[in-house]
């Protein structure tokens, strides 16, 4: 049977506030266990939550970023369940009246095509603590530092149709929230975690199949693998005539499989009711407008501008606009060298290549954007060839100084002296009579290829420093002259 995959994602995004959503405890990652868990986070009797303004601001900024309706009056609710990392016995969340309503954004797929994905809603809630099931004499250890960290839960429509689309959605979302600066987007530290709702239906059917939910997947790669695995599992069940059970599953990265999570659990019944400790949150429209006015240029707009202003391909624009630091770096290089296309090429191939090889982040790059622009200027003014420039770039990467210093120290300046170049051309042409004869005997079409031999020899003789345009010109003159000498 030909199955259509239907996926909706719930992303839990940690907001980049300094303090927690309902208390003044710090949110910094990596602190000693329970040193950032105050009386509110521990649910000590009599403690009351007080809402963090910055969390609300970030949620509204997200809503504006996806063109969503902003809930001008939103309400917090209690979601009741028992787990030791949730000391109150309920999570403060939003159910009926979320801060962000329906919106949508465009995702870009690998092949450059785009699709619009609906966002059902996004709501504010608090994170739970962390349970450590390692050996504590048969007990479980609880760290409540994370309890109360502000989360924005972003719920998508079931609009995604494949693992690739799900990953593209997450990457677009990641790019958007880091542009907005509302989250550090650090997946390894759990800043962006994802629940996957997945079902299959016969292609062409418009009713949804029974879905399974895969909880807490925390990397793009795992999302892709978990989805692929779950598609296979559900297809096997359906093709054997069985039925998918609606349940929560867990992705096990070590075994690359999903498995049922809570076998004995009573069907989820969270008994939501309005949180009596918090009043409704009323958002002033003027405030929303001031936030709208202060939004940075967002990835989609930047991508479009890169295409129209710099003449970049959709693909190149997508890569360079994906993260704000990279886009800023690129634009600094363009400004410094004046050639957007060469800059795009150098940033994507040489810079990103070196960063990848060294497993470095952009901010760790030993070559600053202005320094790369300085190097490209030397290509553009023909001081060095593109090939020599790669050598210079490597030396810059190794910390040998700026482009001009390295070019001078290593004597790499391109030879553009026509007298010196003519001597090289003469030497190679007269040293290879057989190839010259072959060239002269060949027809126009093949000559180009044969001329490559001479260019190669000349470049080699000049240690790569000969100005290639001038070499071509001089060589063509020389060969044409050799041809007419032979005829006369």
């Amino acid at each position, binding site marked *: 049977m030909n199955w259509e995959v239907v996926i909706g994602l719930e992303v839990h995004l940690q907001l980049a506030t*300094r303090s927690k959503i309902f208390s003044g405890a*710090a949110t910094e990652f990596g602190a000693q266990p*329970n040193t950032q868990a105050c009386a509110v986070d521990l649910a000590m009797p009599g403690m009351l939550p007080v809402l963090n303004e910055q969390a609300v601001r970030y949620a509204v900024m997200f809503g504006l970023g996806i063109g969503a309706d902003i809930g001008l009056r939103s309400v917090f609710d209690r979601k009741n369940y028992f787990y030791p990392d949730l000391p109150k016995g309920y999570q403060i969340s939003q159910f009926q009246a979320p801060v962000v309503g329906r919106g949508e954004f465009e995702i870009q797929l690998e092949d450059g095509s785009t699709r619009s994905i609906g966002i059902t809603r996004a709501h504010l809630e608090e994170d739970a603590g962390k349970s450590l099931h390692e050996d504590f004499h048969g007990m*479980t250890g609880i760290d409540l530092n994370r309890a109360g960290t502000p989360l924005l839960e972003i719920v998508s429509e079931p609009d995604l149709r494949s693992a690739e689309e799900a990953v593209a959605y997450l990457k677009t979302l990641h790019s958007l929230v880091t542009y907005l600066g509302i989250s550090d987007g650090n997946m390894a530290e759990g800043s962006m975690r994802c629940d996957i709702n997945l079902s299959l239906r016969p292609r062409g059917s418009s009713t949804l199949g029974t879905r399974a939910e895969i909880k807490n997947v925390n990397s793009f790669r795992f999302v892709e693998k978990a989805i692929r695995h779950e598609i296979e599992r559900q297809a096997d069940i359906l093709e054997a005539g069985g039925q998918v059970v609606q349940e929560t599953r867990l992705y096990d990265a070590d075994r690359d499989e999903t498995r049922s999570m809570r076998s004995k659990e*009573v069907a989820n019944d969270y008994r939501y009711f309005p949180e009596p400790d918090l009043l409704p949150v009323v958002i002033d429209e003027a405030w929303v407008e001031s936030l709208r006015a202060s939004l940075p240029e967002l990835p989609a707009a930047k991508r479009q501008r890169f295409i129209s202003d710099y003449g970049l391909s959709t693909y190149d624009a997508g890569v360079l606009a994906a993260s704000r630091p990279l886009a800023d770096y690129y634009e600094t290089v363009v400004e410094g060298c004046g050639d957007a296309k060469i800059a795009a090429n150098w940033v994507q191939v040489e810079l990103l290549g070196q960063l990848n090889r060294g497993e470095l982040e952009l901010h760790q790059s030993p070559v600053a954007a202005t320094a790369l622009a300085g190097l490209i200027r030397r290509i553009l003014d023909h001081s060095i060839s593109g090939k020599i420039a790669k050598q210079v770039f490597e030396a810059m990467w190794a910390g040998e100084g700026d482009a001009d210093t390295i070019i001078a120290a290593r004597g790499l300046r391109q030879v553009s002296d026509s007298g010196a170049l003519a001597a090289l051309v003469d030497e190679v042409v007269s040293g290879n009579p057989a190839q010259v004869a072959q060239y002269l005997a060949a027809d126009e079409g093949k000559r180009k290829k044969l001329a490559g031999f001479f260019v190669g020899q000349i470049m080699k003789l000049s240690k790569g420093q000969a100005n290639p345009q001038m070499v071509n010109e001089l060589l063509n003159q020389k060969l044409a002259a050799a041809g007419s000498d032979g005829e006369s």
Partner: protein
Amino acid sequence: MTVKQDEIEKIAELARVRIAPEEAAEVTARIANILTLVDQLQAVDTDGVEPMANPLDAVQRLRADTVTEINQREAFQAIAPAVENGLYLVPKVIE
């Protein structure tokens, strides 16, 4: 409004409240009585009655995003039944 005993049993389970089987019927009856009282109050005609002071129009005040709490782990853990390496220990929660 009526409430059935199995509903009370389910709510008790969800709330992790233990009701002994012999008590269940009595608890159900008592809760049903409370709900009947609520129904009675709901039925009162309040047209033209001025509402009492109430918080219904109040809205949430927000606090600035600043860290105001210091680490008091030692004090909190002094009253915890079991701690180790800074963690609170609880009965094992996974099989």
